[in-house]
């Protein structure tokens, strides 16, 4: 257990929740910041093509 967790256990629940939220946001941002695989880049290219006028 880290010193931080030892400290957190003594904190009020709201402080612990904020710490959890920061960690979760970091976990989430790891993936959303990843370079996209080729298959998604191709999909995005298709989605960004302008709709032809009829």
């Amino acid at each position: 257990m880290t010193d931080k967790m030892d400290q957190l256990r003594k904190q009020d629940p709201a402080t612990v929740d904020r710490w959890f939220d920061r960690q979760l946001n970091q976990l989430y941002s790891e993936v959303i910041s990843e370079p996209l695989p080729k298959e998604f880049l191709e999909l995005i290219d298709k989605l960004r093509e302008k709709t032809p006028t009829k």
Partner: protein
Amino acid sequence: MGETTVKEASPEFRSALVDSIPHLRAFARSLTRNRDRADDLVHDAAVRALAAADQFSPGTNFKAWIFTILRNLYYNEGRKDHSRNVPFDETTVTEHAIPPTQEAALEFADFRRAFWQLGEDHREVLMLVGASGLSYEEAAKVCNCAVGTIKSRVSRARQELTKLLSDDTLATSRGEAPSIAQAEPAELLRPEANPEPERLAREG
């Protein structure tokens, strides 16, 4: 994906879909704990969303709508396939994801390990409410349950995280923790890396 399907969706819809892809990948990763399987799921969800573009109500939360599609796909189809694990790929570790201090890095490593030991429903609600920014009400719609159920799950998930983070076995295994970008079920299920292998095995 058919060209016709793409072209039939409005520019606004297509733009929202493009913007949602990284978020879908994060949500799918939290469900599957497997990069390739998550990306397959995201691709399938994008195709399904395009086919159902006319069912989206403009002005409502697009992210919640497409998260629902992805989740339904996962529970209806993808969850059955547990055989497509891929080797751990170290090249996906991104520098910006590394916390600024050593202490923060150790804390985050412990947190990651604890997160991946949570049950599927707990990982799901924490990712929806705690990370992706959905409200309780929106998360309840995504999960097709009552708002109170989401609140209870979030509360229990946080309690479980606290319990796991208080477990000394986390600290002893520090340094081995996979990130969400690295998550690999086979790695997590190694007995020496996981203090609760029976529980994870039950969760499938």
